């Protein structure tokens, strides 16, 4: 930094200085003219003079008209000096931006002296002396120590060039990049019109010093301006008011920067400068000056105290208001969860009818569920709800809806989940898989990804089996889907409300129940992540290349993909390849669903590179012909016969309703109605989005992307449900498009989506809970299964009437399994008339022991599916009781096990 200059400084010609003047009233016109003229007379001409008019159109017009060479700008921000200065900074082009008050006149060397200090690269800003130019004469009582009251340099400031904490607003300059880096002046501080607030420059200087630790703010007293002090400011009244306002402003700065920084100069001022002033007043016998010193200090301290208290009060009030608002918003959540938890205590599972859980859940549960379902759309519609709260609400909905069976049942629900636990058990015991082996679960051995992850968890965590946690799979998988869903939706739509309403609609439309402990649930999550990752981070490199008409129908209409570097793109491609491999090795169907959608996305140039689906197809084919070869060979006919028959494949899973109860018909209609309703709603949403010129073609493509799979296979009668499941996220997004994007924030606007949510929730409960009577296994049934595996010797044949029972969960490979529902239709029909013939047929003259297991849930499921005659299980039980070759070895109210010991003669016909 330079020493005190005694001569005119060298002109820092290399430094371009923009000068900003801010004005707000016509009353100062003469001063404004004088200020601009003083700038024109500078020895170092300013690069530009910017006059920012603070919300005073007449002044702007006059300045534009009468001040040639001055660039006149409007403060288009909030009124106030800070905001006006920021406008000037933004419009400036110089290396340095200097500020001069509109009622100040600069000496000719002003800019040159300021600019010369910038030769030191450490200098962030330079300010100069501001000397008062009293309109009348200086009042005798006005202490020089308080010249800051009239915006001027005061006694006690350095007499030569020196670093200072802050500069004076009437005469200061900063490097423009410093101002840009610190973000300019805070608009909530500083003078507005004639209101005597201040300290905005102090706060900025503190901020700049903090952000540039080696930087210096320099006071150069030779760079002088003369500040006009009107008579109105030479009064006691103004003196007190300005001191008080300065105290308030200091309190505001303290709040922003901390009291230590905000008051560092003031402590020295109070401890050294003011006592010296008092001494001088006493020595000069000027009691008025002494009184002014005391008054000014008192007023400033009072203002600081009041400002601090008010800020604290405001902070406390603000925090209290925020807390109360959040608490009020979260109240329905708390109430709903309380209702849910209380309602669980009064559920009698034994009283379940053919409406499943719907028939036994108490009113409190429904009230809680309805409260959540209605509140979430309202919160989404408000658009101010924090994301964390929305996540909490949706998580609560998931927990309440999908966690209720987990919380109520003593055992794992759904028979296939038990079988999957058995495959994990196999892997843990054998340390290998046997994809080429036989057995009922060999298909799982050939696609072991999901089971391999769970085997690690079971073994490494020291668990006895996956039964320890598998019961909570539905809420966990559904909750886990929330995050990839949000990633996917926010990539396909830029409207936050549409995204969150789509999340809600997804959960209200997801009745399919593929969230149990299964490879499908795992692969479905990865499917969502892959699509989200491809759309967001792997956009086609020439998305807007010339496209044919058909491609214009398919092409992307929303640019939400994120920019990626070439390295990041390559890594992301590798990650997507890894996820694809995990999907291919975990589930048979999901790779084909993914392949279908990826092909459409590539064709529409939503994603790239084009070889992504080729890579997936190659991985799938390679897996099929190696790991899946045995399965393929055994099921080749079944897999190929249905190709090209979409109608038959779609209807393959339909149930013969004539043999089911009215309640089950209702459940069935709820599934169909909910699915069809969502398809229709998605169509309406798509039309509405097209009219709003936001067609979301990506979502539309993905909604139909899996439909071609209907022409490939029936997937055991489940293909139509799986197609619906894989299309559901995108049907949900299009359905949300009925309501959003929209600019409405009125409460009434939430009524329709809330009503729709309720309308979806009603059939969802029927569809999802409606088969729980069959999916639920009582403790007696589980006890029978456990007895079976602890007593039946290896090699035994285990026969059930129907496959819906909790078996196969341990040592499954030691046994052979047969379900009578797998018999051809004529033999199934004969079960009521000659059951032992069919048992004998199933036994196939095996010499080893045979066990026939009949349970409550088999009887119920047989009625639901209609695969067995109504009286088949009763007839079977009666016949087995009568047959001398069989004996009852286990019996409880919900299960009975018959044994035919090894070497026993064939049962009677």
């Amino acid at each position, binding site marked *: 930094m330079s020493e005190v200059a005694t001569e005119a400084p060298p002109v820092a010609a290399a430094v371009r200085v923009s000068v900003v003047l801010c004005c707000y009233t016509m009353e100062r016109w003469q001063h404004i003219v004088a200020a601009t003229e003083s700038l024109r007379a500078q020895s170092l001409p300013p690069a530009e003079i910017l006059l920012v008019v603070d919300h005073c159109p007449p002044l702007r017009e006059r300045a534009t008209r009468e001040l040639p060479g001055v660039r006149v700008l409007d403060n288009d921000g909030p009124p106030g000096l800070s905001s006006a200065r920021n406008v000037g900074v933004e419009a400036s082009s110089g290396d340095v931006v200097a500020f001069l008050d509109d009622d100040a006149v600069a000496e000719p060397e002003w800019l040159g002296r300021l600019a010369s200090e910038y030769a030191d690269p450490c200098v962030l800003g330079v300010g100069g002396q501001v000397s008062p130019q009293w309109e009348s004469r200086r009042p005798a009582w006005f202490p020089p120590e308080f010249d800051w009251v009239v915006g001027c340099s005061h006694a006690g400031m350095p007499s030569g060039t020196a670093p200072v904490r802050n500069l004076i607003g009437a005469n200061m300059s900063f490097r423009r990049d410093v101002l840009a880096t610190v973000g300019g002046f805070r608009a909530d501080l500083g003078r507005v019109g004639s209101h005597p607030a201040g300290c905005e420059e102090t706060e900025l200087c503190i901020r700049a010093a903090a952000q540039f630790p080696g930087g210096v703010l320099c006071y150069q007293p030779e760079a002088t301006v003369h500040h006009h002090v009107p008579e109105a400011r030479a009064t006691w009244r103004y003196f007190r008011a300005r001191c008080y306002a300065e105290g308030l402003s200091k309190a505001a700065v303290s709040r922003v920067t901390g009291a230590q920084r905000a008051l560092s100069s003031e402590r020295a001022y109070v401890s050294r400068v003011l006592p010296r002033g008092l001494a001088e007043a006493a020595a000069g016998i000027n009691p008025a000056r002494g009184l002014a010193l005391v008054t000014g200090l008192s007023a400033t301290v009072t203002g600081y105290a009041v400002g601090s208290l008010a800020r604290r009060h405001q902070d406390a009030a603000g925090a209290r208001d925020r807390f109360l608002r959040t608490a009020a918003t979260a109240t329905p959540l708390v109430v709903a969860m309380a209702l849910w938890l209380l309602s669980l205590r009064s559920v009698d599972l034994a009283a379940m009818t053919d409406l499943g859980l719907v028939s036994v859940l108490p009113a409190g549960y429904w009230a809680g569920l309805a409260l959540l379902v209605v509140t979430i759309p309202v919160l989404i519609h408000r658009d101010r709800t924090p994301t964390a709260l929305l996540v909490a609400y949706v998580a609560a909905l998931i927990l309440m809806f999908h966690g209720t069976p987990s919380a109520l049942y003593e055992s794992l629900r759904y028979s296939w989940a038990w079988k999957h636990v058995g495959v994990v058990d196999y892997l*843990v015991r054998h*340390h290998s898989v046997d994809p080429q082996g036989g057995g009922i679960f060999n298909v799982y051995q050939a696609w072991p*990804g999901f089971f391999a992850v769970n085997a690690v968890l079971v073994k*490494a965590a020291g668990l006895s089996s996956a039964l320890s946690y598998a019961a909570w799979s539905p809420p966990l998988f559904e909750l886990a889907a929330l995050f990839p869903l949000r990633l996917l939706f926010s990539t396909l739509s830029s409207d936050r409300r549409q995204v969150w309403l789509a999340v809600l609609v997804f959960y209200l439309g997801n009745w399919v129940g593929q969230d149990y402990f299964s490879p499908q649930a795992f692969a479905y999550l990865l499917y969502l992540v892959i699509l989200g990752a491809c759309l967001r*981070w792997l956009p086609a490199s020439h998305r807007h290349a010339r496209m044919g008409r058909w491609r214009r129908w398919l092409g992307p209409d929303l640019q939400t993909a994120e920019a990626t570097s070439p*390295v990041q793109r390559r890594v992301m491609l590798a990650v997507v390849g890894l996820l694809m491999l995990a999907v291919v090795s975990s589930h048979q169907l999901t790779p084909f669903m993914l392949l279908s959608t990826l092909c459409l996305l590539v064709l529409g140039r939503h994603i790239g590179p084009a070889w992504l689906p080729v890579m997936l197809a190659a991985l799938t084919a390679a897996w099929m012909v190696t*790991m899946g070869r045995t399965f393929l060979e055994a099921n080749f006919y079944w897999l190929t016969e249905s190709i090209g028959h979409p109608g038959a494949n779609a209807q393959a899973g339909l149930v013969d309703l004539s043999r089911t109860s009215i309640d089950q018909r209702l459940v069935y209609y709820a599934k169909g109605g909910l699915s069809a309703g969502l398809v229709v709603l998605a169509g309406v949403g798509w039309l509405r989005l097209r009219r709003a010129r936001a067609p979301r073609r990506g979502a539309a493509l993905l909604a139909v992307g899996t439909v071609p799979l209907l022409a490939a296979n029936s997937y055991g009668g489940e293909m139509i449900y799986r197609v619906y499941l894989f299309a559901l996220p995108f049907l949900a997004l299009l359905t949300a498009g009925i309501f959003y994007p929209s600019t409405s924030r009125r409460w009434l606007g939430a009524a329709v989506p809330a009503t729709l949510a309720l309308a979806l929730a009603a059939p969802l409960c029927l569809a999802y809970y409606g088969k729980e009577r069959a999916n639920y296994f009582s403790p007696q049934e589980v006890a029978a299964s456990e007895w079976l595996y602890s007593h039946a010797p290896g090699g035994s044949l285990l026969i059930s009437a129907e496959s819906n029972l909790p078996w196969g969960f341990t040592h499954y490979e030691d046994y052979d399994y047969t379900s009578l529902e797998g018999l051809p239709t004529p033999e199934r029909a004969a079960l009521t008339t000659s059951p032992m013939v069919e048992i004998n047929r199933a036994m196939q003259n095996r010499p080893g022991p045979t066990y026939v297991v009949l349970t409550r849930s088999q009887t119920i499921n047989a009625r639901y599916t209609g695969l067995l005659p109504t009286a088949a299980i009763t007839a079977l039980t009666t016949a087995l009781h009568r047959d001398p070759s069989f004996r009852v070895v286990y019996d409880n109210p919900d299960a009975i096990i018959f044994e035919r010991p090894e070497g026993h003669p064939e049962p009677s016909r």
Partner: protein
Amino acid sequence: MSAVWSRYRTILLIAVLAGVAIAGTGLGAPLRALAVVAVIGLVPGAALLPWLPASGSMQRIVIAVAISLSLTAVLSESLAIAGAWTAERVIIGVACLGVGAILCRRWAP
């Protein structure tokens, strides 16, 4: 930034090692389960995050968990197909991949 990264790397290394150690020492099931879930469900994916463009916290969690589970699935099933599966091998393999990614962080874009 480098200070933040140093701390981040240390935390991840500790998490990996603690996870492996806890999973192998026969401590109580809940603690072991949590450690195992952290190792197989988060560590390798989180270690790879510096190479990925995911920016928001939700995006990062989604990608980290998906990578970790996929990596565990592929590694575990590969060992199972080779007839060499043990949980310890999978855990150590996953942890090594995570540590390797952390140590290679300097080459991340």
